[in-house]
């Protein structure tokens, strides 16, 4: 059925197997450092958008703090690697766990709020995180950032060069998407969607909504932390500017363009919006205009997202007149 369309499962294993095989062949076919570097960037955003989809897409909790958790993961990995000499095999899970702890703490404090109030508090958290990383110089070196993060290494093998980075981020993408797919097709994911659709009715039906919302936040922020750890070891340098509110909006835009609450949405959105500015590079200063026009066109003509579930967004007001509501698809 439509809600679970495109989620990897037995029926469409050929499709997903094919997609994975194609992804594995990319470095062999496109022997271009530039293409691979862009692909690595897209891979990071796939994790960020797919994890944000758990809260903002499936559970209907509008968080605007995703870049903060991405940053917390990146700083955790950078600090542990440069000060304590931890390897990537340890900094990666540690970054996820620390980000998830912050996610749980924020969730416990704020999830009594909903809608616009939750959104505002998460924006506040985003700004506080930025200011703390900028000013807690003893821990974060403040505006100087943390250079000299070693490249990722696992079991004695050091990932160097774009091909290595590409396969590493691909593995992390597969891990993230596997967990997301398993969660959204489970009893837990069904409960997330029920909370999005009508929280009161979900509660009256016996769902422990508060606990479930905290869980959604923990899952989403854990993977943001993982993406942060990869970023730190890949860029070899972290600084507070990389994880500001505009970064949250980039991730959120990818999710909305791809399709909120759709499994395929964040993948398509992340890949498309990393590639779009690259291919429109020829347009020089008009690049931003093209980007903006594409966003407006998607929101006007396909509000459920490029790879979204038809009928999942109900157009209202001006949009309802611009585009008649579709019949729900069974």
């Amino acid at each position, binding site marked *: *059925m*439509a*809600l679970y369309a495109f989620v990897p499962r037995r029926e469409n294993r050929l499709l997903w197997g094919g997609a994975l095989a194609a992804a594995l062949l990319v470095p062999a076919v496109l022997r271009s450092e530039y293409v691979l570097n862009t692909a690595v960037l897209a891979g990071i955003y796939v994790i960020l958008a797919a994890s944000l989809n758990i809260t903002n897409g499936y559970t209907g909790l509008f968080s605007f703090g995703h870049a903060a958790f991405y940053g917390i993961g990146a700083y955790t990995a950078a600090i542990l690697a440069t000060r304590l000499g931890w390897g990537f095999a340890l900094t990666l899970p540690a970054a996820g766990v620390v980000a998830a702890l912050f996610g749980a703490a924020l969730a416990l404090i704020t999830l009594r709020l909903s809608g616009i109030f939750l959104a505002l508090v998460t924006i506040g958290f985003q700004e506080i995180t930025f200011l703390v990383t900028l000013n807690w110089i003893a821990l974060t070196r403040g505006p100087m950032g943390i250079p000299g993060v070693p490249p990722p290494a696992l079991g004695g093998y050091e990932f160097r060069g774009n091909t290595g980075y590409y396969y590493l981020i691909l593995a992390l993408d597969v891990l993230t998407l*596997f*967990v997301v797919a*398993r*969660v959204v097709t*489970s*009893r*837990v*994911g*069904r*409960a997330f*969607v*029920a909370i999005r*659709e*009508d929280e*009161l*009715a*979900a*509660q*009256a*039906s*016996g*769902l*422990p*909504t*508060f606990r479930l919302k905290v*869980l959604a936040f923990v*899952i989403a922020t854990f993977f943001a932390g993982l993406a942060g750890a990869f970023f730190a070891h890949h860029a070899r340098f972290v600084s507070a500017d990389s994880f500001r509110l505009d970064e949250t909006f980039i991730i959120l835009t990818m999710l909305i363009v791809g399709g909120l609450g759709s499994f395929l949405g964040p993948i398509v959105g992340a890949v498309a919006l990393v590639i779009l500015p690259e291919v429109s590079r020829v347009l020089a200063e008009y690049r931003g205009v093209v980007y903006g026009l594409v966003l407006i066109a998607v929101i006007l003509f396909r509000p459920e997202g490029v790879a979204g*579930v038809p*009928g*999942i967004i109900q157009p209202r007001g001006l949009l309802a007149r611009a585009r008649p509501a579709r*019949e*729900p*698809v*069974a």
Partner: protein
Amino acid sequence: MSLLEVSGLSVTFGGLAALKNVSFSLEDREIVGLIGPNGAGKTTLFNCLSGFQAPDEGTMRFRGTVLERRSPDRIAALGLARTFQTSRIFRRMSVLDHVLIGLHRHQRAGFWAAVARPAWVAAEEAAARRRALELLALFEDRLLPRMDDFADSLSYANRRRLEIARALATGPTLLLLDEPTAGMNPHESAGIVRLIQAIRDLGVTVFLIEHDMKVMMNASDRIVVLDHGEKIAEGRPDEIRRDENVVAAYMGRRGARA
């Protein structure tokens, strides 16, 4: 011990008393109606019982357990389920998924089980699905053929049926139905009366708000009447029909108040 004992329940909204010192009890396997003119406090009473409204005074005991200060999900877990006056369906979830949401609390698979998906999770999900199909079958051919459709494609009457199916799936011993026949034609309403009786035969006590007097008189063993937040009468349908206070509350009082 009664299934539900309510005593001295009062709720005030900024000086306006929505419920004043209401007391009554419900027994096992009863069908009890709750009637009263608009604004009498019927839905407020349901909201108190299901944990959506904290009473200012009074006690509510369900199978001996105190209900006050308990969240709606914990009350549902005790076996007290409800439907809503204005339909609250999950628009973009399938009919089958609604019933599975009701069955949620009878399943165990959490995050780790969802990710690792050992054999017992698949067995649990298959069992829940079988149970959901049984519950949908109670509604004859209204919901079962549409089980994979999004709920917002259902007719108004079917949405109300779906809400009852979802509430029933939680496995209640007491089911609160808030105007289950609203917007239905007489034929459909008669079907709901049969359904309510079938639900009672499953061992469930039904407490229902209803404006359709025919449904009320046919379905209820007993009726509780509220007016301006106060309980003004309680008794068998034929007694209520003749009760002076009830007639006065619905038709207006003649002469000075007693």
